[in-house]
């Protein structure tokens, strides 16, 4: 099962070079500082990479129409996820809460009313992001929403590398949808959703859903994926996107 596999496609930049360039271009001090902290060398073994699992709960899937409701971050390495260092923030969305997402997140209008704007938590957020590679499950959400949110608030967007546990699962299960014939033979589609992916690695079920627990769940999933498929020596450039 330890087949080495590169998830990466050719368009992935060398993030360590890219950060050098972005540091020069960035105008807002927060982003400048972020890029200047640098990005780890591409050939660094994954076991030496400082990471931060990141999860956003949002009011929907489209960054241009929907908004971030909560943020969960937890710093970790392959050897350990520091639960105590994990942070969770509820933030006030710019757009009205969509009814269906309320049920999912358990965040109510009352919570939102008291919550700060995302802008107010950017300092502690970036404190945790600096020098660490973000790990997410389905990068379009975290990348897209953070980029749009910063454009609105700072006047410029953000680029950053991610390790995407869902992309890894997608890569490992290229033929997720069985053909009609396979369906007839009883083959079930492979789900690469966070909870279903975790089950494949014997990871426990979490009853609660909030951005911090999901970030932790994502960090655990990445550890499992590395130990099962890539090994601690795999260079980070094989996996980042």
């Amino acid at each position, binding site marked *: 099962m330890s087949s080495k596999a590169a998830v990466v496609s050719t368009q992935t930049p060398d993030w360590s070079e890219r950060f050098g360039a972005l540091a020069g271009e960035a105008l807002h001090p927060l982003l400048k500082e972020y890029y200047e902290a640098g990005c780890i060398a591409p050939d660094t073994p994954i076991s030496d990479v400082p990471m931060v699992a990141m999860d956003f709960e949002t009011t929907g899937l489209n960054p241009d129409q929907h908004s971030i409701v909560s943020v969960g971050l937890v710093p970790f390495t392959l050897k350990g*996820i520091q639960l*105590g260092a994990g942070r969770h923030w509820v933030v006030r969305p710019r757009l009205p809460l969509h009814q269906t997402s309320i049920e999912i997140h358990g965040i109510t209008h009352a919570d939102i009313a008291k919550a700060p704007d995302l802008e107010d938590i950017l300092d502690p957020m970036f404190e945790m992001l600096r020098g660490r590679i973000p790990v997410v499950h389905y990068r379009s959400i975290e990348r897209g929403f953070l980029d749009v949110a910063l454009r609105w608030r700072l006047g410029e967007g953000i680029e950053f590398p991610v390790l995407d546990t869902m992309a890894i699962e997608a890569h490992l299960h290229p033929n997720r949808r069985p053909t009609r014939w396979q369906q007839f033979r009883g083959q079930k589609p492979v789900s690469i959703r966070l909870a279903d992916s975790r089950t494949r690695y014997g*990871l426990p079920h979490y009853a609660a859903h909030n951005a*911090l*627990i999901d970030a932790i769940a994502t960090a655990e999933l990445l*550890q499992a994926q590395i*130990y099962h498929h890539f090994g601690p020596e795999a260079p980070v450039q094989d996996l980042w996107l």
Partner: protein
Amino acid sequence: MQAELIDIRNHMANYPPFDEMPEELLDRVVGTIEVEYFRAGTRILEFGKANHWLYYIRSGAVEIYRRSGELYNRIGEGEMFGQFGLLMHQKVRFPAKALEDTLIYRFPEEIFRLLFENDDNFADFVEVEDNSRLRSALSRREKSNELMTSRVTRLITREPVSAPCTVRLQEAARIMTDQGVSALLLMEENKGHNDLKGIITDRDLRTRALSEALPSETPISDIMSEDLITIRDNAFIFEAMLTMLHNNVHHLPVMDKHEVRGVIALSDIVKYESQSSLYLVSNIYHQQDVRGLQKISRDVRDSFVRMVNEDANSHMIGSAMAGIGRSFTQRLLELGEEKLGPPPVPYCFMALGSMARDEQLVVTDQDNAMILDDSFNPKEHDEYFLALAKFVSDGLAECGYTYCTGDIMATNQKWRQPLNVWKGYFTDWIENPKAEALLNSNIFFDLDGIYGKTDFAEDLKTLVAEKASNSQRFLTMMARNSLNRTPPIGFFRSFVLEEDGQQRKSFNLKRRGTAPLSDLIRVHALACGSRAQNSFERLRAIGNTKLLLDDDLGNLRDALEFIAIVRIRHQAIAIEEGRDPDNNVRPEDLSPFERSHLKDAFQVVSNAQKFLRFRYNAGVGRNVQ
């Protein structure tokens, strides 16, 4: 702790010792957790490496090993490991390996210390509850290991002191005094060789010479003990201990083939291991009345628990407990003879059942009988023997060996008979087998002479060994009876539970575990004409005849050891918790490791019963409903 981590806190709050931990403290613990994933087969802790974490299994399963590489335990969700390293020098004592894909929560040493010092429940748990065995095994292992790994020669501190067996009483006593020894070996010249012929001890001088006021010129050969129990020089100390316990001797000549290399005394071993059951045994012989015996009988349970904590195996524990029971019986017989005078005709006091098999535990009743010399005349002699039997039986009851409910005791006239009557009993059981009768006399096929003319018991063993293997009908009946009790395992490897006295669902580890096993081993042993009584020794004898395959024998041995040791631990835990030990085990009292291995062991019993049914043609129904 972030409120969003409540899921993690709630998981821990389901498992001891965190279930009783104050919320604020538990929150603090959760804030220090580091999570790490281990793929199945990965090493988590390696022996001797530094460790500064306590490990909690969030999901998956972990195997814990002994230093020797032997599997110690299997633990799962909600269980902890690594505490022994933390308690002792921060070095890994018990290596750990992920058995399944495992998610670990680990806590730093500082939080472990904080909990250990501030939460008594936690401290008790890591110290006592979870792993009293481990921990006490750790602190005591080396000591008990010495008994099990050191040779008897280590106890020999001087050349053997001997004299020709032609010396007189006074001369023998003078040699012993001059040399400062408590035992003198007596040699006989035989074709230029000096062969060991007998032994005389301090105790013999007191009981056989002084108390009888023998003249100093009495030949020592008149009072010396012959047919000596000896031990090989390559034997382990614990074997010497068991030999002494079994034979009630306090001195053992250590032999290198025919040469005596030295003598070891009970006191040598007691010095070596002052807590051992031997100490208790030697104490038994110092008691001057039933009250004294009754008083020290309270130590029997402590001695039992100590052996369990020292990681002794079931054979050692069973032998030691039987040895203690024997010693009580023997001392009571001595006291009885002091009170009633010497016996009018020779007799043998016989142990039956578990004591005879060397498989006694703490919850036990007395099963015994008397074989009298054939010159026995009921009118003249029986009053004496009844009084003696009653004295012993009452004394044993005082010491915690309850009366036999089936009345298999020497106080019952039927079981207090001359040798020829006994021979008649056994001949009848074997040659005219009747199921119902055999069910009740089963217990007589585990017999051992423990006092007096033990030759009588040996005669009976010989008779059984010779006749039983030739009576197919007898073996069939015995096999059928042994199938009456089946292991508590259902079709899908689930435990079959019964309600115990307190309406709790449990299974009886004796009735449905060790007893059916020793029953079926007995049948095979009888079939191959073995004289052995102990189940492990019987298995060895069966192995020599190829009646069973080596694999099957190995499985039976392992199953017996495992069921017995689980039963023993169950009783030891009850004693430590101040409850009355019993044989009823609830599945939830067992660790997942014990549960799974017990099922394997019961499966072995079940298969062995199927083979027994086939081998002895015992398939047609059951004898008794």
